[in-house]
């Protein structure tokens, strides 16, 4: 039989159903192991401990989400920390426990009451926030009661499609990507945080399927179509064969060794950003065409003292080896006063983002820079695809100096040398930089922050920060235009935003470097695009004078693409 719902994450999946049933709020309070003899103080203490444990877990999940998927995904999880501190959640729970309720029951009754209020709001987006509150409440109630409920999703094997009444944001992030091929849920909407995370993770998903749990039997074979929004349970063999071919086609396509092309045959390189050997392995598994940005600072930050040339050469070789012949662009140490590295003294600065960081810091610490360049030259001698990229370049003088250093410490060094365009002066001088470098790469996060003079971590100004600001888009246009024949890639978060794929291709960019898990989605997007049409439509976006005009133009552009 076929059940249908809302398609929220594209792709085809075939697997055996793992069913996660309704988790009634009421069942949490039945027995939380506290017995009747405990005092109110004991219960309050147990409740506090459960909140602390939950806070630590959610903080760790958010940090992992930031590493894997970026700030947007981390913010989704961090929202849950605000609930833990929320007086409208916490005060009534404490009140109920002080009046004799079992802590788990109190957590549940308050959580479900709050979720119900949110769930009855008119705004569809705000309604979905009830799932976030339930996710937190569930976690705390489980800790109070000493239970674990995500057991059904652990230790899975084979190809699995998860069929659940509901799947929380943290459950979604915790899914084993090696086995879970698809998600189908009875509740949820396009704006559910679980749906957003499924898209980020590249798992095909259909939500809001009425009657799913009645239709789903654990162990049945299911074919999920995340584009059409359907899930067929116990389908005919020919349906399974066709879906397997489609799913395998996707899998095969993502590991092929060359770039995908647009509908009209333009080749676009989709590479991955990485910070560790494990990241590189995952990127290759996701079908990345290479590593467009390898952040070397994580090697430095993870060690008690500065790694010497040999240790670095060993690490960089392991990275190049893990890339299996694909090109790797190593960014030289990019730290500043705000990102301390053990063994490297950086004086405290009033304004670290305008201070000694990136190339400014490495040129001032030649021992460190020389060792890194020698190690990279050794790696490049053994692995031909290695490039080296210089961060925070603000003018030609720095590049002159870098080239002198390279000639001195690594004569005959065989790596391609490039510069990051992230400081506005580098964007304005892009034609000069392009004349001196083998390639350029635009770091859109820092470029946006420096162009708009807005730190997105600062709540007072973060509304000003947008990679879709007209000034940022015009800068991207001028950079690509000014660089002439020199290759320019994009390695900021903008590159991984599927809304921007057509725009960036239209602006003339041919290489995007994105967070590893986003590679399949961006490749998929590229394959659906027509480069000529995207180029024609780009003028409309560039003419936008205000941020909201950009948004409106993007909407039109997206409609044209589909």
């Amino acid at each position, binding site marked *: 039989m076929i059940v249908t719902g809302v398609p929220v994450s594209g792709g085809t999946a075939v697997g055996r159903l793992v069913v996660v049933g309704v988790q009634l709020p009421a069942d949490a309070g039945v027995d939380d192991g506290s017995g009747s003899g405990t005092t109110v103080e004991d219960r309050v203490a147990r409740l506090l401990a459960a909140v602390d444990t939950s806070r630590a877990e959610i903080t760790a999940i958010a940090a992992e989400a930031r590493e894997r998927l970026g700030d947007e995904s981390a*913010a989704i999880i*961090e*929202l849950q920390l*605000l*609930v833990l501190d*929320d*007086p*409208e*959640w916490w005060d009534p729970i404490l009140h109920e426990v002080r009046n004799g309720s079992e802590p788990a029951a109190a957590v549940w009754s308050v959580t479900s009451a*709050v979720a119900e*209020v*949110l769930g009855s*709001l*008119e*705004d569809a*987006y*705000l309604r979905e*926030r009830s799932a*976030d*509150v339930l996710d937190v409440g569930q976690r705390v109630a489980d800790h109070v009661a000493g239970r674990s409920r995500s057991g059904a999703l652990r230790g899975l094997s084979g190809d699995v499609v998860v069929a659940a009444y509901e799947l929380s944001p943290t459950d979604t992030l915790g899914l084993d990507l090696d086995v879970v091929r698809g998600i189908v849920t009875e509740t949820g909407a396009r704006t559910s945080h679980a749906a957003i995370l499924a898209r980020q993770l590249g798992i095909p998903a259909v939500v809001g399927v009425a009657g799913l749990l009645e239709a789903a039997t654990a162990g049945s074979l299911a074919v999920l179509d995340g584009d059409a929004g359907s899930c067929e349970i116990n389908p005919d063999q020919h349906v399974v064969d066709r879906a397997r071919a489609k799913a395998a086609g996707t899998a095969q396509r993502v590991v092929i060794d060359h770039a995908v092309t647009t509908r009209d045959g333009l080749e676009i390189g989709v590479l991955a950003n990485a910070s560790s050997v494990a990241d590189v392995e995952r990127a290759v598994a996701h079908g990345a065409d290479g590593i467009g940005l390898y952040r070397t600072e994580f090697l430095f930050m993870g060690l008690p003292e500065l790694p010497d040339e040999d240790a670095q050469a060993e690490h960089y070789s392991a990275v190049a080896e893990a890339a299996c012949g694909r090109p790797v662009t190593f960014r030289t140490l990019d730290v500043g006063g705000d990102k301390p590295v053990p063994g490297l003294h950086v004086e405290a600065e009033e304004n670290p983002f305008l201070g000694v960081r990136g190339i400014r810091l490495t040129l001032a610490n030649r021992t460190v820079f020389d060792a890194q360049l020698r190690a990279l030259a050794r790696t490049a001698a053994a692995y031909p695809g290695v490039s080296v990229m210089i961060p925070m370049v603000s003018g030609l003088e720095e590049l002159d100096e870098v080239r002198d250093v390279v000639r001195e410490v690594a004569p005959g060094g065989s790596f391609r040398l490039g510069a990051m365009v992230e400081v506005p002066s580098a964007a304005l001088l892009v034609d000069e930089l392009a004349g001196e470098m083998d390639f350029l790469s635009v770091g859109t996060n820092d470029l946006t922050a420096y162009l708009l003079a807005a730190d997105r971590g600062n*709540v*007072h100004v*973060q*509304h000003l920060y947008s990679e879709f600001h007209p000034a940022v888009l015009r800068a991207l246009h001028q950079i690509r235009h000014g660089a002439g024949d020199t290759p320019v890639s994009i390695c900021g978060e903008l590159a991984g935003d599927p809304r921007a794929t057509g725009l960036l291709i239209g602006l003339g960019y041919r290489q995007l470097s994105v967070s590893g898990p986003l590679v399949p989605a961006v490749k998929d997007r590229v394959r659906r695009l027509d480069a000529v049409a995207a180029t024609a439509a780009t003028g409309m976006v560039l003419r936008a004078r205000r941020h*909201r005009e950009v*948004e409106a133009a993007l909407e039109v552009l997206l409609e044209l693409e589909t």
Partner: protein
Amino acid sequence: MTASRTAVVADPLGLHARPAADFVAQARTYESEIVLTSGDKSGNCKSLLGVLKLGIATGSEVGINATGPDELAAVEALAALLGREPDTGAS
């Protein structure tokens, strides 16, 4: 004493989770009691749930009332964060 301001929510998505989270984080930096009102509903500005449950859409006019030692600074900053001043006809 109470300080009050009105503001028109500028975010195109209204007061959604992320802007609401920023708003609440900002409100928590003040000592004063701060209340957000929208229509006939009101909520505690230091509570994410209190703010979300108001279901505030873009363009709605909301009131911010603060009572306490830093009430004036609180309402000024929070009104500015939400968006623009209500249109009074002045240019």
